[in-house]
C-alpha cells in the first residue's frame, strides 16, 4: 500500500508572497480550506486506498501543509529539504524531527544548496528528473544522484508560475508523463523527449496547467486531480486511468494542489 505524509491546514494562510500565486490580499477561507483538505484525505484514504501519515501542524508555519516539500523519501532514507526562502526554512527542523521520530535515516545536504524535496524531484522507475532555477539549485542533483545511485536529469523551470517541477510535470505510474511543455525551454523539452517517447507524453493545455492539472497524485491506475480540468481528465482516462477530481482552490491561492499537499513515503 502506498503511504503519504500529510499535514492538516490548521494554520494555513497567506502570510507572505514567495511565488506569483500568493497575494496577501487574497485571504484563505480557513473553514473552506479545512473542508477541501478533508475531502482530499477521504479520496486518498478511501477511493485510492493510500495509507495516510499525518504530522502535527505548527503555528506560524502556514506552508507546512505542503508536505511534498519536506524532502524526498526513498526506502528508509529521508533527504530533508533546504528551502530557498527564509519563510519556509523554519519548516526544515520540524520535517527533520518527524523523519527521525519515524525511524528514517535522515540525510542532510550541504547547507549552501537549495533543494525543495519532492516538489522538485520526480521519479520514473529508470530516470529521475530535477527541476531547478526557481527553487532548487542544479548543483544539488549530482549529489542526490550519488546518494541514491540514480540518474537525475535536471530541467530548468523557465516560468515563475511553475516554480516547482511538480506544478508542470507529473510522472504517472504506467510510465506516461503528464506535463506542460511551455514551462521548459527547448533544451528541457529535448531532454524530456530523449527519455519519454512521444506516445507516452500527455500534454496539458495551458488553461488547465494554470489550474494545477499537473499537480496530481498518481497511485496505481488512479489519479487525484484538481477539479475543473476536463481535457486533462480525458487524456488520463484515454490511457486507462481512473480520475478523482477534488476542488482545492483555497490551496491554489498559495500555489499548490493535490500533489503539493502530499509526500510519497516508500
Amino acid at each position: 500500500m502506498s503511504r503519504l505524509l500529510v499535514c492538516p491546514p490548521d494554520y494555513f494562510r497567506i502570510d507572505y508572497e514567495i511565488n506569483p500565486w500568493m497575494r496577501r490580499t487574497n485571504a484563505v477561507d480557513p473553514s473552506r480550506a479545512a473542508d477541501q483538505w478533508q475531502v482530499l484525505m477521504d479520496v486518498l484514504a478511501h477511493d485510492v486506498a493510500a495509507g495516510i501519515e499525518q504530522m502535527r501542524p505548527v503555528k506560524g508555519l502556514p506552508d507546512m501543509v505542503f508536505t511534498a516539500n519536506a524532502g524526498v523519501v526513498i526506502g528508509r532514507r529521508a533527504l530533508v529539504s533546504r528551502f530557498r526562502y527564509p519563510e519556509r526554512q523554519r519548516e526544515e527542523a520540524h520535517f527533520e524531527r518527524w523523519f527521525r521520530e519515524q525511524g528514517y535515516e535522515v540525510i542532510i545536504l550541504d547547507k549552501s544548496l537549495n533543494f525543495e524535496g519532492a516538489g522538485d524531484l520526480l521519479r520514473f522507475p529508470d530516470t529521475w528528473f530535477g527541476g531547478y532555477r526557481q527553487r532548487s539549485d542544479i548543483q544539488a542533483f549530482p549529489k542526490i544522484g550519488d546518494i541514491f545511485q540514480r540518474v537525475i536529469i535536471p530541467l530548468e523551470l523557465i516560468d515563475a508560475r511553475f516554480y516547482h517541477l511538480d506544478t508542470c510535470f507529473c510522472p504517472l505510474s504506467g510510465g506516461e508523463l503528464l506535463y506542460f511543455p511551455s514551462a521548459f525551454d527547448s533544451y528541457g523539452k529535448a531532454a524530456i523527449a530523449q527519455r519519454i517517447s512521444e506516445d507516452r507524453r500527455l500534454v496539458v493545455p495551458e488553461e488547465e496547467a494554470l489550474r494545477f492539472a499537473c499537480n496530481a497524485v498518481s497511485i496505481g491506475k488512479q489519479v487525484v486531480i484538481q477539479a475543473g480540468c476536463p481535457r486533462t481528465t480525458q487524456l488520463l482516462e484515454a490511457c486507462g486511468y481512473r480520475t478523482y477530481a477534488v476542488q482545492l482552490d483555497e490551496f491554489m491561492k498559495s500555489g499548490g494542489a493535490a500533489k503539493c499537499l502530499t509526500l510519497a513515503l516508500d
Partner: protein
Amino acid sequence: MTESQETVFLQGHIIDSLILAKILDTILMMGGTFDLQDVKIGATRDAESQARIVVRAPSSRVLGDILRAVQPHGAAIEREADCRYEPAPARGVFPEQFYATTHLPTQVRLDGEWVEIEGMEMDLGICVDPAKSCARTVPMGAVTAGELIVTGREGIRVTPLARPAERDVFGFMESVVSSERPHQPVIADIARRMQTLRERHRQGGAGAKVLLAGGPAIVHAGGRDALTWLVDQGYVQVLFCGNALAAHDMEAGLYGTSLGYGLAAGRSVPHGHEHHLRTINRIRAIGSIQAAVRSGVVADGIMAACVRRDVKMVMAGTIRDDGPLPGVLTDSMAAQQAMRAEIRGIGLALLVASTLHAIATGNLLPATIPTVCVDVNPAVPTKLADRGSFQAVGLVMDAASFLTELARELGWRP
C-alpha cells in the same frame, strides 16, 4: 586586444539533459568563446559526465555577464591562485624556478586580477610590479638584482591563438612547409594584407607596420629592384639585416656587382671581390649610410630607399663580417635589444633569405603577428617552426622571385 577569461567546472548528467549544450550556446550567444578542457563523458548513459570550460570574452564586463548567466545551470567558477614571484638573486640571473615565456598572449594573476604581460616574446622571464599591478617580459641578461620574477606555473594563463577573421593564408597560422605548395595565392594574400596595412599605417593606425628581415641573397638573386620599389612605395617600415645585405646593396649601386659578380653580365668582374670591401670602406669614410645617401654617393637601391623613406633599420653584425659598415651593431645583446624595440607596432613580418635573421626575428615576435618565412632551403622555415614560431607561413622559393612577384602583385611594372 585584452581578452578576459575564467574557467568553469560542470558535472552531472550534463550531456543527456543538454545542460552542457545550453551553457555552450549561452556563451556563444552572449559574445564569448570557449575551450572545452578535460571533458569526461560518462561510460554509460547512467554515468555522470564532467567538463572544464574555459570561457573567453572580449571584455571583463561581457565575461561577468556570461558567468552570471551560466552559473545557475551549475557552471562553478574555478578560483585560481595568484602567480608566485621571487626577487632576482643577482644582475642577469633569474630565480631558480623562473617561468619561461612562450610567444603567445599571456596574463599573470596579481592580487586577484589578471594582468596582461607587456612585450610578449618567447624564452624570457616575467617581471612583475604588484604595487602598480603590471607585468612585463624581461630577458635573462637584462634583469637586475631584486626585480620580482614570476616563478612556477600557478596564476599564469597562456591564451591559444584565436583564428583571425581574415580567411587568407594567415587564417590557418600554421607553418606548412612545402616546395610543392603553389606560391601565387600565398603571395596574393600577403600583398592584400600589405595593401591594407599600408592604408592603416598612413591613417596612423597601430600595429600596421611591415617588418622585413632579409639576407644578402636578396641582392645576389636579383630581388634588389623589387624590394627597393616596395620600400619606396611605403610597404616596408622596418628592416632587420646584417652587414652583408647593406654592403652588397650599396656595392651594386656603386659598382654594379654583388660580391664581385656583375649583376647585369652575370660573371665575375676583374678585382670584383674587392668591391664590397671598397664599398664598406667608402661608407666608413663618409661616416654613415644615411650621410652616404644624402650626399648622393649612394643614389639607388634598398639602403637609399630606406633612408629616403625613413625606414627603421637595425643591422646586426656577425663574426664573419668585413668592416663592418657604420651602424652595424656588433654586440649581439645590444642588437637583440634594438630589434626588440622595433617589434612594437609590427602587423606583418617577412623573413626573407636569411637563416640567422629569420630565427633571431622569429624569437622576438609574438605569435599574434602574421609571419612569412621565405627561403630556397626548406630547412629554414622548418627550423623556425621547430623553434616555436609555429605561426610562420613557410614559402620555399627564391628571394628574388618572391619579392618580384610580391611587388608585381602590388602594382610594380619594371
